[in-house]
Structures are given as C-alpha cells and as structure tokens.
C-alpha cells in the first residue's frame, strides 16, 4: 500500500508538470462550475441575507432556523431533488439539463444560497448597533445604511463566500448524481477521485487530491490577504 502511495505521488507530479490534458480538463470543469454557482448564489443570497439581518419582522426567528437548517442540507439529497426535477419525467425535464455542467451549477447554487444568506445575515447583525444608529442619525436612507453595513462587515461576507465556494468545489454527492461524471464534460475533482480510486488508478486520484487541496489553500490565502488589506 505504501508503495502505491509513493507511486501515486510520483504519478501526480508527472501529470501536473506535463500538463496532462485530462487533468486540466477536470480542473477547468470544477472551477467553472463551482465559481459560477457560488457567484450566482452570492448575487441572490447577499441582498436577501443582508436584508434579513437589517430588518426586524415577524417570523424572523423561524426564517433564521430554516436558513440554518438549509446551511447543513445534505448535498446528496439536493442532488436527488435536482435530479428528479431535471429528469425527463420531471417538471423541468424539457430543458434537457440533466448530466450537464449547468445541472451541477444548479445543484451547487441551491447548496450555496443558504450558506451565503446565513453568513451575510449574521455579518450584518454583528455590526456594532451604535454604528448603525450613527449612520441612521446622520441621515442615511435604508439603501445607504445597507451599503455601509455591507462595507463594515465585508470580511465576514467574504468568509461566507469562501465557505460556500469551499463546499461547492469539494462536494461530491450532488454533482455525481446530476452531472453523471462524464469525461471532459461533467467530471470534476471529486467525482474523478471517486472513479479513479474505484479503478485502482491511485496516481490520478492522488494528483487530483493534491491539486484540490493546493487550490483551496491558494484561494484561501489570496482572499485572506485581500481581507487583511481591507482592514
């Protein structure tokens, strides 16, 4: 077994430094899908989450509980739901999205929305209430107040985006079900690792694992730098 791991690592290095087209294809699909889904989710979730954080209204507690529940929604169940919706007999079957990158984006989008909503809400709520009152009493309207609070809590909001992206790129259940792990089209890091491991192709699996971890590290490091520069 130890032998296989060493061989795997060597194979991983070879694949990476020879710019293996299949490896790069997987990287491209993974990034395209996860970045798009997280970005689209942020477009929807950021306004919703910050609005919930800003306002007091009846049913806010229940809504918060609901969001928190969905933040930990099992990806594989999400995959199942999207599969049923997009399958030929499902309500959106006619769109023909099943087993495509778009289907994976949809699944990851619905997984990321509650995460970004929840963190944006918490970020806005954690702003010093004295600051909120100062901004209001200086004459800001609701939109201006909202923008100031977003700016003041941007670190937490970026962190929420990071968590959502991290979950999306490392998630396997949903993309496996709705994407189908089709070579060159819907094969991502995670689905590929599952496949290669099953086939005993540890080299490719380890290479993908190393790259996945390295990418996660680089992205996080870069964004952390941006965050600390902003303070």
């Amino acid at each position, binding site marked *: 077994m130890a032998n296989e791991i060493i061989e795997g690592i060597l194979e991983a290095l070879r694949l990476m430094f020879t710019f293996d087209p299949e490896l790069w294809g997987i990287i491209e699909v993974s990034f395209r899908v996860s970045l798009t889904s997280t970005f689209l989710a942020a477009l929807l979730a950021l306004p919703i989450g910050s609005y919930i954080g800003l306002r007091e209204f009846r049913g806010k507690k229940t809504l918060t509980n609901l969001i928190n529940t969905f933040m930990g929604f099992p990806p594989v169940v999400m995959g199942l739901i999207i599969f049923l919706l997009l399958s030929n007999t499902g309500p959106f079957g006619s769109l023909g999205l099943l087993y495509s990158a778009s289907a994976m984006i949809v699944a990851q989008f619905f997984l990321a929305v509650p995460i970004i909503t929840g963190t944006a809400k918490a970020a806005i709520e954690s702003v010093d209430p*004295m600051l909120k009152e100062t901004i*209001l009493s*200086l004459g*800001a309207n609701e939109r201006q107040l909202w923008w100031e609070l977003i700016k003041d809590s941007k670190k937490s909001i970026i962190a929420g985006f990071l968590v959502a992206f991290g979950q999306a790129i490392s998630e396997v259940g949903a993309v496996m079900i709705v994407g189908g792990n089709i070579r060159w089209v819907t094969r991502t890091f995670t689905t590929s690792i599952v496949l290669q491991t099953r086939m005993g192709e540890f080299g490719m699996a380890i290479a993908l694992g190393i790259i996945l971890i390295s990418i996660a590290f680089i992205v996080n490091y870069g964004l952390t730098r941006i965050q600390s520069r902003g303070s």
Partner: protein
Amino acid sequence: MKVLNVKDLHKEYYKDDKTSIKVLSNINFSVKKGECFVIIGPNGSGKTTILRILGLLELPTRAKIIYKGKDISKISRKDQVKYRRNLSFVKQKPVVRNTSVFNNIAYGLKVRGMKFREYVEIVNNIIDFVGLRGMENKNARDLSGGEMQRVAIAMNFVIEPEIYLLDEVSANLDPMNIKLLEEFIMKIKQDKEKTIIMSTHDPIEAIKFADRIAVLNDGQITQIGNPNEIFTAPKDEFTALFVGYENIFPGIATIDKKTGLNQIKINDLIVTASSQEEGEVKVCVRPESIGIVKNPPKNTSYRNTFKGQIENIRDLGNICHVIVSCGSEKFLTTITELSKKKLELKIGSHVFINFKATDVKIL
C-alpha cells in the same frame, strides 16, 4: 413657534417573560424654535430614551410627537429618513465609520445628495476648525479617543440641521473637546433658526446653555421652566436637591477700573464679583454662602450687602431655607434653625443679606 410638541409619551420595555419595565410615563413638553431645551436628571432617569425617541432610534410605546403637523412616531420609513435629515444626534460615545476622517465628516452631506465639489470646502473648513488638519486622510478608527471625539463632533455639526439632539455629550470629553463643543453650541444658540435639545446630569451645564429646563426623575418630568425658576423655585424636594438650589440671575458685567472687581448689574442691584468675565453673564450664588443680619454690618469683608424682606421660610429640620426679596430679585439662603430663632426671623421681617465677592460664580 413650536418645533416639536411631545404629548403623552410613554415607553415600556418588555422582557422575555412578558413583564414590562416603565422607562417613561406621561411626558409632555414642547420645544420652541431657536431655543436650547435641556433635559436634566440623574443617570437612569430616562433622558437618553427621550432623545432616542425624538431621533427615531426607538419607538415610543405610546405618544404623539408632532413635528411640522405630523406625528413622527407614526410616519413611513421614507418620511422617517426625511425627518432624520432635519436633525443631528450627538451621542456620548463617538462612533466613526471605517474610513478616512474626511469621508467620515463628509458622510452626512453626501447622503443628503451633495456632490464632492459642493462639500469639499465645507468639510475642509470644519477640519480646520476642529484642529484635525493633517489627519484628514487617516482612518478615523486609528485615531486617539480625543481625536475621534472631534471627528464625531465635526460630522454631526457640519450638517447644520434644524434640530440638534445632544445626549450627555460632554460626559466623556476631555477639557479641550469640551471647549470645542461649547464653542459649537454657543454658535448654534446665536442662530435663531436652530433648536437644541440636550440632556445632562450636570446642573452647571444646564444653567450655562439652557433657555428652558425640564427636570426628569424616574421617567417623569417633575418641572419645566427657565433656569431661574428651576433653581430658585424648585417644585419638589427632588428638584431642589438635584439642582443644588442655586441663586441664578442674568446680568451685565463690567470691570471697575479702580478696584479691578467685576460689577454685575442685575436690574436694580449691583453685585460685586472677583471674576473677570464681562458682558452678558449669569450670576450664581449658593444659598449656604449667603448670610442674614438684622443690622447693616460696618467694616466687613463681604462686598455684597443688600437690604431686603423675608418672603418665605421653609423649615427642613435643623436648617431652613429663607427667601429674601431684595429689590427686583429673590435670594435663597440656607441658615440653621438656631440662627433663625436668635435673629427672630419671620415672614415679613426686614433684614440684610450679605455674601463675599469670591462666593459669586459667573457663568
């Protein structure tokens, strides 16, 4: 003309177990345009809550707060913003945004729709005025406490609103910033279009700025009146104890070139004081500094002696308050019960009161 009219204001806070705490009950007052209205009371009496309600940072449990014919406690969110843009709310603790000093000070003007070229000069002027030149590009959150206070003062005063709500603003300020704040307040007071509503627990501050004072005790207003009325004729024991029962008279001060002493003309009386302020002043003499004698003393070190008649005597155990009217003014004095008996003081008795020039406080 009334700027704000507060009627039947009640505020209760509800705890988780549905029980409530009364913070304010049956508050009624109105504030006139151009006046400085001071709410005075001990900590926890509800002063801040009143200002927060007037600033729409909190809603009353029940109230009618009329501003320009509208009840501000029941207006739409849009109108709330419109109303808030007519006022500025200066708090005890300065809070600044995470941006430069310049941007912090300019914020109130910016949200009101002013363009950079319109406000750049105004903001720069106030930066010079508050002594923050050279720091305008620094992040306001990196400043020292005192500098941050100046940013907070500047950003609230640059707006030049119709109403200023000042919540115990001098409580945490260093002496330099207190002076700065006083300069701003005095400047605003000269503008008869601007109204100040401030809260304080310091009677001296109230005397200094107030045109009218409301005394707040345990969520209720016990008395409203001009400083003279509040300090010389407190309606109840709380007010009397809280304000320190002072004698306060407005007058005109001039320095006597021969003696170097200050001569303050208060209607038909001339009070001598040792301080050097000239012009319009307020003269304060504490009741315990005033002595009563039956015959005018000769060769005394007391520079102030006035003939008067006892108008009222209030017994308070072993001391009593004696109110003596001298010409147009009434003086309050505190003497012991023993002195009262020895001097055979009664309502209507003719007496002389005296006090030292050094016991006269000029505000």
